[in-house]
């Protein structure tokens, strides 16, 4: 973590947390319905299941299970990094219920349906002393046992 002194800003605000401690995994920012208990990502004002307006923000993850995946052989949009000329993408089931689609860390042969994953932040470029970060998931084995 040579770059931990850099400030980090999310590529899009309001979708995930950027913890002060770089070792701490980010959480996804979703919604919980106070009436039926259903969770959603991203945030929404009206419950899509029971149509209640009594919804509150709920942090989701950081763990998840891989429902499906691919490996895209094109540069990651908005990234200035050579290692992003090809990238994994996954559909991940969060323990709270929502399914999300985000990039995956790793190579295609490292992915398998049903494997446990954990969220992490990945810098796609630098703007002065600030890193612009996206949220992605990585296999928990590669996370050194974190969650």
């Amino acid at each position, binding site marked *: 973590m040579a770059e931990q002194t850099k400030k980090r800003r999310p590529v*899009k605000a309001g979708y995930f947390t950027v913890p002060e401690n770089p070792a701490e995994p980010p959480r996804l920012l979703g919604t919980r319905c106070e009436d039926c208990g259903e969770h959603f990502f991203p945030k929404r004002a009206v419950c899509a299941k029971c149509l209640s307006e009594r919804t509150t923000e709920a942090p989701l993850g950081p763990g998840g299970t891989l429902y499906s995946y*691919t490996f895209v*052989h094109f540069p*990651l*949009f908005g990234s200035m990094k050579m290692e992003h000329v090809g990238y994994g*993408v*996954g559909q991940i089931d969060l323990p709270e219920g929502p399914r999300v689609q*985000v990039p995956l860390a790793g190579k295609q042969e490292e992915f398998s349906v049903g494997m446990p994953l954990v969220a992490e932040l990945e810098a796609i470029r630098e703007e002065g002393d600030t890193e612009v970060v*996206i949220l992605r998931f990585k296999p928990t084995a590669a996370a050194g046992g974190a969650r």
Partner: protein
Amino acid sequence: MRKTKLHDVAVLGVGMHPFGMFPDSSNADMGRIAGLAAMKDAGVSFRDVDAAYVAQIFAPVMTGVRVMKEFGLTGLPVQRLDNASATGSAAFFEACHAVSSGRYDLVMVLGFDKMTSMIQETSMNTDPAYLEDSILPAGFFAMWATRRMHERGTKPEHLAKIAAKNWNNGALNPMSQRRPDKTISPEKILSSKMIAWPLTAMMSCPIGDGAACAIVGRADMAKKLRPDRPVVRVLASDLQSERYERGHLFMGPVVGPARMTVDTSSAVYEGAGLGPKDLDLVQVHDAFVIEELEYYELLGLCGRGEAEACIERGDFERGGRVPVSTDGGLVARGHPGGPTGLAQIWETTLQLRGEAGPRQLERARTGLCHMMGGGSVCAISVLQRD
């Protein structure tokens, strides 16, 4: 209650501007060519047109009504619709129900787009408008394929066989963007550039420009205008958006829930008073060939889990049980956006009339056209020759 059944609605005429790369043609040029061709085909003049629905995704405010001025200024109402890939199908749906309800006698549905210019504009941005924008559309559809392979043992060869079929169908279509001059093999499809595993470039639709038009009107007018040919009726048409289920993907709404095609087709079959076994030909939203494979089952052309065996038997090829994507589909004929769903109406109408030239199927009485829009809407129409 929403009704899908249509009363005495017919496709009076169809016309197209070819799909492909046309950097020197404007939306107005392409739209005019397709619209004039459709009116000539119907045997009507622009003075006969009561209203126009313009299907167009990627152009500035008021482009719809401006392009319509190409035909003349007669005071008719002009409405522009956008529903992503299903834009042309959505406009056709509206036009059919407007005629069915008695609101108009004769309506023009005109679709055009220049997807090439849209791609140039969005590639100038560096930050995504949505969080999921970093993911290529092919990636979303590829995940549908990966899951299918996991659950059903589907092989890339099955996908390649669908793609080869559509490329070879496109070779027979003068309006097709991809018209290979020799037979395309599944091996050639598999060896093309990998885009998002397991989808290769030749399993994916190209970007392009084009226009297509349908003239929709009362069925009795069809007989009077062109007594020389059979009437092609639109029996039923529906458009549905998503229903919430656990696991719904709110981000990256490119693919859409599978049940949308089941729900929409069920409603259309009921309205048309027939079922999938009555269909002679089918056009689907095959932007990526995994979609066509899934839609075989979701439209009821075969049972759940049977698609792979059907593909191996050639059930959906020309001469097979139910030919699908007979004009090349999105994969070969192309997918400019607004006009795509109307190209399906063009193909189905010509096939039902027996005017499809080298593509003509032996048996073609009833056809279905299916489009998905941004994974968020599904539009389906069933056409039948009297």
